[in-house]
Structure formats: structure tokens, C-alpha cells
């Protein structure tokens, strides 16, 4: 069951939009990070069930941050939420281990579908462990 969600995005508005677009009736606990570097730090401290990751960010971008988080825990579910939906960006971030990529701006239906798929994967991982 997904409870703890880490949102890594330099835009406070994007983080707010994402939280508001989360499916209703589920109680999540959120932590926020303002760039990819902050994201890795918060990932270690907060130990989230899943991560929402932007790609275009200052300091450390979402590609590097995803790579570092996946090195820390290869089973991490990272849902990338980005305006950079060029095929090469999507292919690169998927190769780095992202679970799925959602186009900005946030839309509840797509987020709900991604969360449902993430729940299934988490169950699968827990079952295998």
C-alpha cells in the first residue's frame, strides 16, 4: 500500500498541482524536494514508497537524481512527471529505471493509473521477497 510519497520538483506550483491531482479518498503523506540533489537527501531520510520526479531542474536534474536513487535502491518506483516528453528523454529515463513517465500538467486520471500500476508492482516485489 502506497503511503509515503516524495515529490521532487523545483516548481512549488508544480508540487502543489500534483498533490491536488492525487486521487481522492487515499491518505498520503508527502515530502517535497526542490531539486535533484535535495531529492536524494530527502529520499534517504523519508524512505518513500514511491517518488514523483521532474526532469528539468537546477542543481541536479531528474536524470542524475533518478540514477542516484536507483543505485540506493533498485526497487524504487519513480514516476516521472515532466514537460520534457521527447522520445529520447523518455527512453533515457526509462533506461535509468523510471517506472513510468507522465506528461505535465498533472491530470488525476493518469496519476491514478500510474499509482494503481505502482501498487501492483509493489505487491509483486513484496511477494517475491
Amino acid at each position, binding site marked *: 500500500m502506497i503511503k509515503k510519497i516524495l515529490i521532487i520538483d*523545483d516548481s512549488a*506550483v508544480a508540487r502543489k*498541482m500534483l498533490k491536488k491531482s492525487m486521487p481522492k479518498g487515499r491518505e498520503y503523506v508527502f515530502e517535497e524536494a526542490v531539486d535533484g540533489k535535495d531529492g536524494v537527501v530527502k529520499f534517504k531520510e523519508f524512505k518513500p514508497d514511491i517518488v514523483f520526479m521532474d*526532469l*528539468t531542474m537546477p542543481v541536479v536534474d531528474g536524470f542524475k537524481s533518478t540514477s542516484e536513487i536507483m543505485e540506493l535502491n533498485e526497487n524504487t518506483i519513480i514516476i516521472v512527471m*515532466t514537460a520534457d*516528453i*521527447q522520445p529520447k528523454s523518455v527512453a533515457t529515463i526509462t533506461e535509468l529505471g523510471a517506472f513510468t513517465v507522465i506528461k*505535465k500538467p498533472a491530470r488525476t486520471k493518469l496519476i491514478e493509473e500510474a499509482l494503481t500500476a505502482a501498487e501492483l508492482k509493489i505487491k509483486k516485489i513484496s511477494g517475491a521477497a
Partner: protein
Amino acid sequence: MNSEINEIFSDEEMDILQEIMNIGFGNATVDLAEVIDIYVELSVPHIQVIDVGGLPGYIDSTINKYDDTSIIDQKFHGDFGGSSLLILPIRAARQLMEYIIRSDDDQNLSMTKPMVILEKEFLMEIGNILIGACVGKISELLNTFSTYSPPRVISESINDYQEYIKSFTPNQAAIVLKTVFKFESKDINGLLLILTNYESIGWLRKALNDFLESYE
């Protein structure tokens, strides 16, 4: 953000503008990729309000940071109205054209027109795609629509350039949405500026707040 910006837009409004520009330019790169198979490295957009009297100087100093540039200018009209400038190195046109002039037919096409005209038309098309997709997405997110004048390439000659800079009158203040990008495989850096009219600030503030409220 400086105090002069805060007088006009709140931090949250600036953040929405930045995010909307980010989404707009992201969409534009996908549209461009449908025409040219090229990857664009994006950066975080920068939003700035330029004082009355400061716009010609701002444009001049921004463009002059880039040596030997081509400027593609396109005006857009509507609630969200203004000018957009795509600034690329002069060599960009020829390098990017290599992506589309590959077939024999295309090579024949290149023989029918002088290269300089082809390059100019190509630049206008790149500008049309990037500016149209970016401004169009911003307009869509702000629940309005824009119409466009045809793009034009500002000549590299000093006279044309100076006339162009002068066309931004000193009594015109503006909001500048700037994004720097890089065509990865060609090592070409570019700059997209969207300049909105000062008169549209009232409308823009309301549109930004309406946009955010749709998520409340």
C-alpha cells in the same frame, strides 16, 4: 526574484508562469522532433519583468551575448499578446538543414533555390514550430487562444538589426519568459524569448490565478 518583480507578480504567480513556460517549451520540442529528428536539452525557464525604457537595451544586450546570431521574430495576438524571438547562431540553419535535406528529392530542391534563401525559409519554419507550439500551449493552459503574424528573419545587417531593436519602443515594458536550450548532437545553443505586452499584465494575473484555482 527582485523587488520590482514582486511589485507586479507574487512569487506564486511567477512560479506558475515559469511552470507554464516549461510545459509550453517542452511541447514545442516534441513538435519540432516530428519535423527534425533532433534532441533538445532543456533548461529551467527564467521569468523577468523589464522596466519601462529597459526593453530595447535588454534585447540588445541579450542578443549580443551570442555571437553571429540569426533572429527569428514572430508576433502573437490576443489576450496573451506580444512578440517571440528565437535566437540561434548563424551556422544553425545549415547544420540543422542537414537533418532534412537527405533524400535525392531534397537535394534537387536545394539546387532550385539559393542556399541563403533556403536557410532563411528553414529558420522561419523552425521559429514557426517552436514559437507556435510554445505560445499555443501557454495560451491553451491559460484558457485563451492566440493568432500569429508570419515569422520573419531579422537580417544580420547592422541597419536592419538596429531598426529591429528600435521597434521595441522605450515606453513599452514587458514580461520576458526566457528559455535557453541546446540542440545536443550539433552543439548549437539557442534562446527563446517571449515578450508580452505590459498592458496584458492584468489579464495575465487573472489567468494565472484561474489556472491555479483549477487545481484547488
